[in-house]
């Protein structure tokens, strides 16, 4: 398997199937993934451009028009305090996505560092780090997240940190596996023999090899982050109202499910579609970047 990288002829990919444009062609074959990518691009664009889209104020309450049906002024109606649903949905996307992406960055940073160090050094550090990782996987992290947020407060930074610090374990495992796979390869051995420092070897040689798997893990990590953030916000321990996020829009909706069930539909559907897209994207990337792993 290691030599497949150097001796291209052993690779299961046809001669014309390597390279970026070919990867894209492979990706295109997966229709679900293409749809997912399109959806995600649209959602991110809308979220990023939210303040300039000419929407109603998402946080303005208007207690005279609660639960209003769709109208020209409120395209999707209003919620239980008279806030415009559509704009809350859009601004909620902004918050939810921002938190999820930031949390993913935290998870990737921590996971990559720990995974790379443990793979590179081996021996005692590897043992300790891996035990710690396994321990964290055993612990009911959602519980801990709740606890930390209840105790230290639910501001944005805490939420991002908590989600990131409960999701790095998968990244660490992936990176460690990649580092272990790449270490024996000739170009790495050469670099080290020539006196390359640890940092140099890691950054220039090992991590680039780990990049495809890392990207997949990161994509799936965002899916996890979106779900977790929405669960925490739903429970009231995540992002606090009036700042809209898809999760806390559902808290209110649940209370009034007997009165206006529609309110529960939009944010939940948004969450589901987004998480689905990230999952589909991650799976497709996994197949694209390393078709040897494609099992189905």
């Amino acid at each position, binding site marked *: 398997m290691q030599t497949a990288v150097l001796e291209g002829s052993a690779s299961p990919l046809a001669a014309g199937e390597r390279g970026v444009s070919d990867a894209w062609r492979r990706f295109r074959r997966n229709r679900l993934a293409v749809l997912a990518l399109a959806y995600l691009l649209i959602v991110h664009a809308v979220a990023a451009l939210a303040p300039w889209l000419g929407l109603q104020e998402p946080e303005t309450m208007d207690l005279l028009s609660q639960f209003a049906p769709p109208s020209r002024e409120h395209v999707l109606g209003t919620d239980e305090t008279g806030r415009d649903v559509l704009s809350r949905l859009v601004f909620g996307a902004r918050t939810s996505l921002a938190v999820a992406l930031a949390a993913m960055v935290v998870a990737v940073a921590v996971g990559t560092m720990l995974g790379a160090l443990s793979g590179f050094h081996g021996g005692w550090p590897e043992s300790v780090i891996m035990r710690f990782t396994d321990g964290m996987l055993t612990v009911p992290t959602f*519980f801990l997240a709740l606890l930390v947020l209840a105790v230290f407060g639910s501001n944005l930074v805490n939420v991002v940190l908590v989600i990131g610090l409960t999701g790095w374990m998968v990244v660490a495992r992936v990176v460690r596996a990649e580092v272990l796979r790449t270490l024996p390869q000739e170009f790495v051995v050469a670099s080290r023999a020539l006196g390359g420092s640890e940092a140099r070897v890691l950054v220039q040689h090992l991590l680039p090899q780990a990049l495809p798997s890392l990207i997949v893990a990161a994509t799936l990590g965002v899916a996890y982050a979106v779900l977790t953030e929405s669960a925490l916000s739903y*429970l009231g321990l995540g992002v606090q109202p009036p700042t809209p996020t898809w999760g806390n829009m559902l808290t209110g*909706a649940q209370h009034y499910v007997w009165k206006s069930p529609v309110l*529960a539909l939009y944010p*939940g559907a948004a969450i*589901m579609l987004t998480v*689905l897209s990230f999952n589909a994207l991650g799976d497709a990337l996994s197949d694209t970047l390393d078709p040897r792993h494609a099992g189905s």
Partner: protein
Amino acid sequence: MRRYLLRRVAQGATVLFVVSAVVFAIVHAAPGGPALLNNPDVDPRMAKEMEKLLGLDDPIPVQYARWLKNAMLGNLGRSYQHSMSTAELLGARIPNTLLLSGTALLLAVVLAIPLGMISAVYRYSALDYAATLTAFFGVSIPVFWLAILLIIVFSVTLGWLPSSGMLTVGTPFSLGDLLRHLIMPSIVLATFPLAQLTRYVRSSMVESLAQDYVRTARAKGLPERRVLGRHALRNALIPMVTVLGVLTPRLLGGAVVTETIFAWPGLGRLAVEAAVTRDYPVILGATLLVSALVVVSNLLTDLLYLVIDPRIALR
């Protein structure tokens, strides 16, 4: 074999220690003491007295040591909020959580195996496509949203099922009543594990069907059912057991949200309330208990491993 088990038990105990220490540190390091003492209406001298009474003015390691010693003897202190012994409080709730999580786990496993198997055997068929897509949805749907949807359909619109609680208040206990309350929460809780497990069973069945021993079994003329059930499936189940081990903490975590939505009187909900009201003894007790449950279930998973694949014990 015995050494393997002992090692796992030791690992489990270590995890419990570390978790309890970490939780203790978090809870006590936070700004403001228990919710009672945080109350600005409380006379500062009274607050000081309460602190002394509850032993909160000792240095943290001392408090931890004291708590640990008591915990080992089964004394988890008294809840600040509920004025009951913590152990009693937790004890009353465990069976409910176990009932819910257990039912969900059972549903997930019992349905995932045949679904995954059929998906793998009839690969790329319409059935497979439908199952895979549904599994995809299953891992992506937020638990609380699915719950709300089910409540809208079955409670609000159809009025068939109750939307909260474990039993109907004021009526004598009946199994039917319990089951009616149990259906929705357990389906909701089972969704993610079911979807995840189905995908795993499918992919590992696909792998094991490609192996030589399956070819041999078929060449021997064994009926297809035997080939699938006895040979391919057995080997496909091994990775599934691993996944179960990883899913269990998630299941217990998921129970928190599900219990909250359906007002199910379980550990998860208790823990959330305790976290919000800074009920230290209950927080510590509940976290410890949940972690212990996870450790135990991991141990059971390992035992299951040994049953399915005897090679592991020899390592």
